[in-house]
């Protein structure tokens, strides 16, 4: 069996001394799409931040292996350069930095000597047009005054350009109307392939109508309480998280 792309082993993490992740184990293989579904406040964003090494979150126990390498103590930028991408739930504005400049700088950082300056323009234009954004998008300042839909498009645009091998997409569907949701989902689907692993973090099932997951995990109170196939998402849609929350409390 080949090495898993991502292997999370009994991960515990806390913020300001409060434990949020209470022992998570999860394995994602290349080519797989996993959906992690949970109610608000269950710690989903903590998991995505911890996977990228956000300094606010302290890992107290467990390990994160990426392509077999222990990256638990790696800095955020090193994880990104190794091929991990995080699509933010709330992308941050960077005033005065144009989208094009930002994406180019990020690509240079991630690709290093392999960055093809000549190819960049063409590829960038194509990626923008596929996501239905106008060319003027390139000269706007990163997330500065962007609508919710524009912010999420920019996240997927970056993912398209950076070509990660693991994409963690945190609530990419939040704040999107149905048309934007379709465009963004199509963008993600285009990137699916045998080399890419995706962890979709979401509250609602609706995103999974567009991006079909291989595995669905139910995430409640800092733990994965159940895993199954895509039918699990539909079951959640029908019954909600309540039965699991009870389990979590009694357990």
């Amino acid at each position, binding site marked *: 069996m080949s090495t898993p792309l991502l292997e999370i082993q009994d991960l515990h993490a806390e913020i300001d001394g409060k434990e949020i992740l209470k022992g998570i184990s999860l394995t994602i293989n290349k080519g797989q799409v996993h959906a992690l579904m949970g109610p608000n406040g269950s710690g989903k964003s903590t998991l995505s931040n911890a996977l990228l090494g*956000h300094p606010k979150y302290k890992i107290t126990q467990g390990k994160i292996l990426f392509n077999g390498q222990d990256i638990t103590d790696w800095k*955020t*930028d090193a994880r990104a350069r190794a091929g991990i991408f995080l699509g933010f739930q709330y992308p*941050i504005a960077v005033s005065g930095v144009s989208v094009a400049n930002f994406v180019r700088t*990020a690509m240079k*950082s991630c690709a290093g000597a392999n960055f093809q300056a000549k190819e960049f323009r063409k590829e960038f234009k194509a990626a923008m047009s596929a996501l239905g954004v106008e060319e003027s998008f390139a000269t706007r300042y990163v997330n500065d005054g962007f609508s919710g839909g524009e912010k999420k498009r920019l996240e997927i645009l970056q993912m398209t350009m*950076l070509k990660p091998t693991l994409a963690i997409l945190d609530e990419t569907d939040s704040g999107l109307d149905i048309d934007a949701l379709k465009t963004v989902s199509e963008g993600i689907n285009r990137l699916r392939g045998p080399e890419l692993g995706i962890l979709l973090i979401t509250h609602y099932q609706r995103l999974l109508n567009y991006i079909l997951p291989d595995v669905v995990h139910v995430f409640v109170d800092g733990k994965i309480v159940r895993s199954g196939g895509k039918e699990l998402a539909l079951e959640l849609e029908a019954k909600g998280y309540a039965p699991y929350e009870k389990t979590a409390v009694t357990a």
Partner: protein
Amino acid sequence: MSDDKALNIGQNYEQQYGFHDPEKFVFKSQKGLTRKTVEEISGMKNEPEWMLKYRLRALEIYEKKPMPVWADMSLLGQIKFDDIYYYLKPTGGEGNTNKWEDVPADIKNTFDKLGIPEAERKFLAGVTAQYESEVVYHSIHADLEKQGVIFLGMDDGLKKYPELVKKYFGTIIPAADNKFSALNSAVWSGGSFIYVPKGVKVAIPLQAYFRINAKNMGQFERTLIIADEGSSVHYIEGCTAPTYSSDSLHSAVVELVALPHAHIRYTTIQNWSKNVYNLVTKRAAAHENAIVEWLDGNLGSKLTMKYPAVYLVGRKARGEVVSVAFSGAGQHQDAGAKMVHLAPETSSTILSKSISKDGGRSTYRGLVKVYPDAENVKCSVRCDALLMDEISRSDTYPTMEIDAKKVQIGHEATVSKVGEEQLFYLMSRGLKEQEATTMVVNGFFEAFAKELPLEYAVELNRLVQLEMEGSVG
């Protein structure tokens, strides 16, 4: 601004500017300030009687005036006025020369290190170089001299053009304006005197460079620029000092007179070492249709208090201040601008940008005043501050006193923080922490450049970069 420069300000200060030469002087006043000090200074300069009287009157005012209560007294209150040498005439300061080879070797060497002669050859129309209290070198392009442009050290100006100096000296900034203008008026020495005749356009900048070398030094240069009707001139000043553990004091007075249709641009790149108190009064009078622009870059010093002003005294006069400040550890840049509209149809713009890091503090302090008869005035003020960390600080004190009708005033102020979330976002795209910080800072300036007329942006970039590379002041 390119690459990491904005972040590295002051990092190589020791090597680039913080060195000092042995003190060689023909006269050094006693520590502290007395009537005798003032008389000695005036006597050594062979000044006319009116100037001595002016100085002594200013000394009385200085002694009576209290310290400004609104200032950052935690720093200002530390100045040991009695430990300062108020006048130091270096060897070579007996009569300045227009040949670098005649400047004493130590001093020439210092200016060489600072890149002044090189800058002069490359892109300046004239230079004065002041060392301690005296101008040791001055030059001006021959063709400008032929057109009647005067560019001298202030002391020479007073000797050679006493009437012109007497007519304007102290008229824009009276000794009694504030405590430090009074101090300067009492003990001033050096500085530049410029007169540009009617209709003459000085296309290439003139520059002054101010260097403090001695410990506990007080430098009090005095500059007066008169641009006659329809003329234009661009003046640049730079300054540095050695790093000492004890403090030095720099307190200048700069008066500009822009007669009708004249245009003065005054650029400052202040890069004093972190033991220098920089307490400067700068003010211009802009007559009908005249334009005065202050470009004020504050990188160095311990405490700077400086609010370049334009008094718009003639119809349709225009004033602009562009202020950029960097505050690092132990520094407080208390900078800003004043626009005083005394005539109708006058307009002004104030743009201020500050970056504070490592516990540094930046203050924007500004005044916009419109007098009752000044109708149809336009003014816009914008100040943005960027805080690089939690321990740095930024304050904004914009004062508006509008006593006229039909006035358009705009004011905008922002404070942004380079936060953990912003760095995390950029680093999650593969940027190293330093690269991420640089990107935020560059972005801060990019937005600034977009709001500026192109020539300003280019100018400022060029100067800040040259300053940091040590090629020009």
